[in-house]
């Protein structure tokens, strides 16, 4: 699936959609496809503080356990509860229904360390 142009991307295959002082984060379609059937996700707690490029959760496919690395720093204000029972949304719609968390950004300057869609497409080519 094409990487949406309005998102920023990390080398660890997470995406960020900025909306004012908040951002929605998730994993890319590329990551979901590489993982295979995702059967479990360990979400961060609301109120947790995330640090850019540090782990903030876990996704598990049938075969493998993988850490999630936050693309931004900030406080978690909402998590996608639907993923607890239907983690397959991460495979089906990674950039939409498969969003993972909303974060109150602590430093918008961090976004400069992320890639745009074209650079991320090169990264995963």
């Amino acid at each position, binding site marked *: 699936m094409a990487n949406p142009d309005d998102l920023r991307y990390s080398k660890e295959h997470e995406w960020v959609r900025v909306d004012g002082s908040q951002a929605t984060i998730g994993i890319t379609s590329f990551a979901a496809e590489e993982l*295979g*059937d995702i*059967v*479990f996700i360990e979400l961060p707690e609301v109120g947790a503080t995330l640090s850019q490029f540090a782990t903030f959760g*876990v996704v598990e496919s*049938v*075969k493998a356990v993988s850490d999630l690395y936050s693309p931004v720093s900030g406080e978690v204000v909402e998590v996608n509860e639907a993923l*607890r029972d239907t983690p397959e949304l991460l495979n089906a719609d990674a950039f939409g229904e498969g969003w993972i968390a909303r974060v109150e950004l602590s430093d918008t300057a961090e976004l400069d360390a992320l890639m745009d869609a074209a650079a991320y497409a090169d990264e995963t080519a």
Partner: protein
Amino acid sequence: MSTELKRTPLHDVHVGLGARLVPFAGYEMPVQYTSIIEEHRTVRSAVGLFDLSHMGEIEVRGEEAVSFLRHGLVSDPGALEVGQAQYSMACNADGGIIDDLIVYRRTTDRYWVVCNASNREAVVSHLEALLERGDFGCSIEDIGDRTALVAPQGPNAAALLAELTDLDLDAIGNYRSADGDVAGVPCLVARTGYTGEDGFELFCDARRAREVWDAVAAAGERHGLRPCGLGARDTLRLEAGMPLYGNELNRETNPFEVNLGRVVKLDKGDFVGRAALSAVQQSGPERKLIGLRMVENAIPRAGYVVRADGADVGHVTSGTLSPTLGDKIAMALVPAGMAGIGNAFEVVVRDRPYRAEQVKLPFYRRPRD
């Protein structure tokens, strides 16, 4: 040192199907074609097609082949009729498992030993060492490289195969085999497998593997066939409670610990490992392989610590989310005295204990008609 991976004769087929290929036991093998869960369900409900050409085949032939195998393996191949197969193991003198394998009696004095790819050299060495020590009138030959193995597995496997062979498949019962043509290619057609479903393993000349695969795949279109990778093979065998070498089985584990004491025939006469295994049988195994079902929401994985009443007591040998049952399941080795259906354990996942309950093995048993 070269670490170049070997390829099965069906490598091009896998690439053409867009399989994800991974290193496995020195081979480049398909782990999945589309989705492990879909492939798993296909084997439970229709028929899946596996390339298992990496498996090791060793031919033992000669007048004393059977007495040689009785010495080299823990089971009693002397009980086999021509055309019959037997699950067995090779153990070392300490009773540790070198490999688990299947012995096929091909003719009166010709047997095949089919072993795990990762242990092929170990099994060959074990048998060669025994051959040098004893005065056995037989020879052994590693025929793994020239033998391919294509396995249609699932409830539709027999109907599918019947379209491609003149063999009377009804006459080939579970753990039986027969020689015959499949799509014009001479095969050993065995009703064996590692999925918990009905199914066949078709051994043929590696040079003709493509013909067999293509014919089975083409006929399979009417039977809901999908090619299946090693990922589904692993979840299928785990649901069926079948041990995997390297997970449940290794040289530090004996057959009695993993509920396979019935395979060991202590009264057949001398064999490698007999004294050690006899002692284990007398005293009872110290550990026992059990089935666990998670009560709390976490997926158990190989190597995770198992606790009882807050104390570390063992480890998970294999674990997954069961595609058929929807449960999070595991096999684990724990002290034998702690085992009991319904007993409470905890599995430590990322430093946190999650509750689990011991359940009966296998987790899944196929419906029989």
